């Protein structure tokens, strides 16, 4: 039996827990359905998510709520300039056991399912780099010994766009390892009013888990079986290609302001996230619409603008919007003289 034969019932079976997860997360953080959807998409795609937003917007609560709803391990690390790599990965400590002394590995907070790295840009590059192997290989190597991290493992890091003094911007290599960079904006006054009224201390309501660890693993595994057609993969490739200033398909803003475009990892991330989004939508195949929806979340931290963009006040959002406008879903545009 082809794997595609069984995928539809598996997808249908997964719909209810995923819907519950989304509904519950929307209770944790109000009026952020799109952000919640992207976060769950990123997690199901097996990626790491960088959350950026002002303090007090509920980033930490969102991640905590997610881990609680999924019944998975959760650790939180507050990144500070004096944080050492071993504070994250763990280290060997000398321990006396049965009259003998031996080095025993003391696991760091990275040994969990969800690692919340609060204000990740406040740690030194050395400490930030300690996460590279964990994020990419899902393993940690200390003193020559490599240890696998629990599955699933993903990092959800937060970043404060203000108070940049004393911070260390994430290196491009590490930024590229985050599947999504999501922006958390302040809530509308109506939502704020609800929060003030309903949440005395700001704490979200206590929610029961809606997803087991096995279900989460199964969902992540199911994402890999989602089919990406040649047309959709071509579309992804053309989109990523158009983010490069030297590409013939690049729009004017990309040619003028972008210094580096998306890497092949970005294309892979876009494909994976489109698959995950399709699972959430209950489809056995990735669609053009999912690719368009997720293009911003995947690419906004991967496009490196040059200084002229700052001078002209051009942001990465405009470049991405121009790419989406310039690249058609059709690999061959409709001939002139034909209209839809």
């Amino acid at each position: 039996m082809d794997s595609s034969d069984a995928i539809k019932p598996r997808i249908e079976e997964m719909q209810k827990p995923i819907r519950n997860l989304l509904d519950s997360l929307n209770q944790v953080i109000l009026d952020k359905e799109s952000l919640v959807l992207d976060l769950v998409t990123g997690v199901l795609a097996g990626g790491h998510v960088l959350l950026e937003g002002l303090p007090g917007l509920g980033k930490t609560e969102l991640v905590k709520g997610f881990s609680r709803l999924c019944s998975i391990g959760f650790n939180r690390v507050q990144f500070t300039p004096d944080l050492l790599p071993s504070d994250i990965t763990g280290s060997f400590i000398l321990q006396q056991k049965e009259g003998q002394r031996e080095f025993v590995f003391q696991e760091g907070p990275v040994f969990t399912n969800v690692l919340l790295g609060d204000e990740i840009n406040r740690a030194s590059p050395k400490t930030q780099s300690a996460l590279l192997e964990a994020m990419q290989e899902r393993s940690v190597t200390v003193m020559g010994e490599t240890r696998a991290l629990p599955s699933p493992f993903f990092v959800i890091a937060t970043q404060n766009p203000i108070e940049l003094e004393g911070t260390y911007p994430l290196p491009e290599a590490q930024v590229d390892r985050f599947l999504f960079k999501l922006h958390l904006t302040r809530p509308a006054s109506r939502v704020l009013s609800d929060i003030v009224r309903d949440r005395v201390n700001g704490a979200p309501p206590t929610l029961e888990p809606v997803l087991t660890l096995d279900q989460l693993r199964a969902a992540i595994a199911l994402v890999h079986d989602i089919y990406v057609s040649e047309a959709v993969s071509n579309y992804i490739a053309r989109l990523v290609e158009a983010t490069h200033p030297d590409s013939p398909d690049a729009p004017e803003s990309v040619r003028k302001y972008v210094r580096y475009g998306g890497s092949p990892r970005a294309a892979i991330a876009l494909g994976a996230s489109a698959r995950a989004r399709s699972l959430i939508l209950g489809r056995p195949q990735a669609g053009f619409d999912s690719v368009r929806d997720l293009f911003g979340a995947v690419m906004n931290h991967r496009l490196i603008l040059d200084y002229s963009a700052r001078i002209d006040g051009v942001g990465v959002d405009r470049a991405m919007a121009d790419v989406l406008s310039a690249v058609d879903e059709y690999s061959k545009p409709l001939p002139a003289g034909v209209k839809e």
Partner: protein
Amino acid sequence: MTENRGLRSLVRPFSRRLNLVVWVNASLGWTLGVAGLYATALIALKVAFPEGARYAHALLALFPVVLVAGWIAARRRGAFFRTTEILEIADRLYRNDGSVTASYEQPRLMSGPDFFAEVKGEVWPRRPRLDARHYGKRILPVLLYCGIALVLPPRPPTPTQQAEEILAALTEPLYEKIEESQPLLSEEQREELIEEIQAISENNLAVTREQWEAIEDLEKRIDDAAKLGENALSELATKVDEISSRLDSSGATSATQMSSPEMQEMMNDLADLMKNAEGRLSRPFEGNLQGMMEGMRSAMSPGDLGDRLDDLRSRLSEMLDEGSLSGDGAAGRGGIDRGRGDALLVLGEEQTLDGAAYEEKQLANKYLSPDDLVSLGITPIEPKPDPGRFSPGTVREFGSETGSEVSRTRISPGQKDVVGKYFGE
């Protein structure tokens, strides 16, 4: 892959439509170019060379060539839509969720005819349609241009100066002849003849064979009419002589000596003569004769009547001299009995007539036999003898005073009678 057949029924009409548009687009520029070229050529020929305007239609033969070239060009550029590309369009028109393309690549992913029927039902009504404005903006101006070129009337040919000169040379003697024969022609005859000459002269683009023949025919009619008038006058003069002799033989010196019936008979004879001549002479002359007749009726004596008859006889003699079309015997001044000698004979450069062409022919023993002489045209301009150019057998000399020189030249059929009469056939 059996499920894919459902998509084929959607893909094929899509493919036909879009690839037809691709073909049209690839050919459109060249097609419009050829159409514009055709219209331009048609206009140019209608203005500059109206007779050759039909040759512009040959450019229409380029249309199939351009269409084939457009198809080849589109194929080489890879502009035609492949199945997968058609499916992308169908996918977007369906739900933009990749289901159509995925179902084509993985038929089991989207199974069942229901799915294909649903796709077709949703996509076909939203299929890409021709943008009439897009093509209208391009095609209509060219069509308009072609329409103008087609309805544009060809420029009317301008009369050639040479043709005008020839016609004037041919018709001027006719006017002169009418003027000379004025006493012998009635007013109606003169007006009719002048109108016919003017009608012949209206077509002054080229001198045609028909015009030549019409002019000759007209000249003959003028001569005939003048001859009739002259005959009437001659007959009148004879009768007047006869009456005069009868008067002389009567020996009467006064009217009383002549019997009234005798006088009356003479007067009746004169009246009959006048009646016969009526309509064949010019109106002033007829009036003049009527006046004279009235004078004779009122003559008081045979002497008086004789004087009046003498007066009438001399008047008739004058009239005959004035209206005579007989020539004076000089060359080129023939007359009604000597052919068209009065006509200004203008020879010169050869005139190309419709359908006429010179045929190069090798003469046996350098001898031109009469059988080789074929009438092709008439040279209406003054001749320029070139003895070195013409063989002795064709043209030897012009300008003979007597017409006795031997000359072989080609003449038109219309001239043969005249020439034959001139040489006393």
